[in-house]
């Protein structure tokens, strides 16, 4: 028994993929050592660890794990370079960029992306491309704060937002499913429509002015007292309810999508609608429900943005977040945890970009292109292969 276990663990450790992954981790570690809370000021350790990562990468490549090995080499070089940059910079500046609230801010920026990306997953897994996420999010953002303003209740506001997003998604679904319109064209149209409708009614209802202050806001969940300052407290102690809802949504949608018959049906419609139809699944119903759900979820993300975070609205307030969510969905390979991971990464990059102002506005601005560059690289197949659902984008005609 014991020898069997021994060979097993040995074979796992020497597996070239494991070597590569360890190399990537070491590369990241090289950088982490140089930033708070560790803030190593000597270049020795980052260089040594980065070099080890490089070696691990070369070993992994030589044993056949080209992709992971390449990642390890890249992580080793990038980690060391970034660490050396961080060592050059002053500690006070570093402390302003990296502190415990960075995690909280990352979650703030990741939340709208998570809602929309998970929503998009439902739509695309059922076989309907949804590049209208941006528009659905924008509908949620405007009608959410309008609802919260008129009813005086943030909860009703979010419900109205969900309704608005769902309605716009229904339009997209109707054109994509029943009228068999090109789904990408339809999604583009939905984005224009949302931009026009929210802009028009913002001017009409608020006379081009601002949303009054003091609109009912989604509250935060206080886990720790405000006075105590711990790493955990600063990170997770004072998060909005919607952030927790987004975090809960991820495992929930994973279970629904991959562990229930319902999820199997959705995926069947996205992979092979004819086969799904043959076994008695109503492809139209499944697709309608999935697209509307995607609109509802995207609108929740938009509502969080206005009712939960900004507490105001301005024209095109979502500013491309729906497209980043789409990127997160692609980056995360149409899976909930993958999409969430990508949303966290993009949220982190936004949070860091805002903090880079302490160094230079220019660096901060350019840094905001990072999520898109990363997605472009991911789509190009450099980091693994992204595999969309087989029938996504194709209208289905019943026989």
């Amino acid at each position, binding site marked *: 028994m014991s020898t069997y276990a021994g060979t097993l663990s040995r074979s796992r450790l020497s597996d070239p993929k494991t070597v590569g992954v360890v190399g990537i981790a070491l590369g990241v570690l090289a950088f982490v050592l140089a930033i708070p809370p560790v803030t190593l000021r000597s270049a020795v350790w980052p260089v040594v660890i980065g070099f080890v990562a490089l070696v691990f990468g070369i070993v992994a490549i030589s044993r056949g794990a080209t992709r992971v090995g390449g990642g390890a080499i890249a992580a080793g070089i990038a980690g060391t370079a970034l660490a050396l940059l961080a060592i050059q910079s002053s500690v006070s500046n570093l402390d302003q960029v990296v502190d415990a609230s960075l995690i909280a801010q990352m979650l703030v920026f990741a939340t709208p992306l998570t809602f929309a990306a998970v929503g998009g997953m439902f739509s*695309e897994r059922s076989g309907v*491309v949804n*590049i209208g996420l941006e528009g659905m999010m924008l509908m949620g953002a405007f009608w959410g704060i309008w609802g919260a303003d008129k009813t005086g209740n943030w909860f009703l506001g979010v419900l109205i937002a969900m309704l608005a997003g769902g309605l716009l998604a229904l*339009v997209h679904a109707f*054109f994509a499913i*029943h*009228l*068999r*319109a*090109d*789904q*990408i*064209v*339809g999604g*583009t*149209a*939905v*984005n*224009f*429509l*949302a*931009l*026009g*409708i929210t*802009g*028009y*009614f913002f*001017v*009409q209802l608020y006379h*081009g002015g601002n949303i009054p202050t003091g609109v009912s806001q989604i509250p935060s969940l206080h886990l720790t007292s405000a006075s105590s300052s711990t790493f955990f407290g600063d990170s997770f102690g004072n998060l909005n309810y919607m952030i927790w809802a987004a975090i809960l949504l991820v495992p929930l949608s994973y279970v629904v999508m991959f562990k229930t018959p319902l999820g199997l049906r959705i995926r069947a419609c996205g992979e092979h609608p*004819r086969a799904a139809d043959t076994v008695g699944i109503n492809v139209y119903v499944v697709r309608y429900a999935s697209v509307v759900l995607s609109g509802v979820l995207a609108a929740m993300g938009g509502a969080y943005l206005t009712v939960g975070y900004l507490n105001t609205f301005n024209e095109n307030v979502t500013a*491309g977040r729906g*497209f*980043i969510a*789409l*990127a997160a969905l*692609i980056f995360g390979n149409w899976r909930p945890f993958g999409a969430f991971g990508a949303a966290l990464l993009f949220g982190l990059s936004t949070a860091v970009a805002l903090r880079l102002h302490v160094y*230079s*506005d*220019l660096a901060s*601005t*350019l840094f*905001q*292109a990072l999520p*898109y*560059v990363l*997605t*472009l690289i991911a*789509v*190009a*197949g450099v980091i693994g292969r992204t595999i*969309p*659902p*087989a029938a*996504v*984008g*194709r*209208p289905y*005609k019943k*026989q």
Partner: protein
Amino acid sequence: MSEPLAPQHGPQPDEIAQEPPATPAARLARWQDAGGVLVPVATGIFAFLIGGVVIAATGHNPIQAYWDIIKGAGFNWLAHPWNTDVATTAAYNFSQTLLQTTSLILCGLAVAFAFRCGLFNIGGNGQYLVGLICANWIGVSFVNMARPAHILLGIAVAAAAGAAWAAIAGFLKATVGAHEVSTTIMLNWIAYWIGNYVFLQGGPLQAPKNVPLDVPISADVVPGAQLPVFWGIPALQGLHIGFFIAIGALVVFWIVLNRTTLGYEVRAVGYNPDAAAYGGIKVRTNYIRAMAISGAFAGLAGGIDMLGYLHHFGTIDVQATSIGFLGIAVALLGRNTALGTGIAALLFGGLVYGTTHGLQSGVIDPSLAGHLTEIIQGLVVLFVGADVLILAVWNSRRKLRRQGRVAESGQPKPETAS
């Protein structure tokens, strides 16, 4: 997003007849078969009607509002075109509408050309921005260059930059099969942030003279690189010769697509990449080439706008740029043909100018009317793409004609004239 284009698993022959067209160009062929000019016209009217309902529902008089928009666009100038004095409102407004039309024609062609190759180029906005940024760079530098050379250089570099930017998406499509919609969306946003970067305080293109004022705006293109104005006063955004470049681009588009081998290959790939490959056409090369040509149109639009009337640009302008997206509506309404794109560009050019700067109305506020453009734009794009609606129009028209031919309704013809 996937590969909705080529049927990869080889459906059964009877299934092919039942399935909706798989490629954008096959759809286009059906659109053109079905209804011809009738569908876009009906679509446009329908979109304007719904827009009118929105205006009425929010307590404004739709007829008066539309009349004000028509006057704002200067279309009433067409009633007395012998008066070319831009001191009169109608003539001035119409010259401004044509200014918008110029860039919209090119942005529309950027979408249309790729569409004919079966690619949906949603990245016109990014390609436009890249072209515009490069034209600003050329226009501000090389101060001592001769005027024609300077202008030509600026326009050429802008077109080349747009082509290169779009070719990235074409290259990724050709090599690793990355869907062009995903990649062009990403390229749009990368261009957006590059634009924000170059014009920001301290950015490479921010004007040095602005530094004490601290505004994120570029320097002005030197007079030697500005396009000559032929209608109106240069200081008041007169209509520049870029208008004729856009008209020329329409002609070039038609000739290249319909009268050259390149265009034949592009259309063949767009209609059915598998069949084209079987016929010996290099599909991958055509993807890259079609995207590059598309991008060149959009980059040209950016270059002409910069050298023609914008002359400088700022981060706020970058954030407000959406003309590349409007190009999608123009191309789709124009059915991706040269003539159609030209007419649709005039319509949207009028709409853009007539609902914003040109609008003087007691009925509808420009800030409201500007959003009306977006609504109408959305409705147009929504309706022009709906196969079933188009087929319904087509079938009803056929019944009216009482033709005996009872063809299978779902079958598009392989070759269609544009």
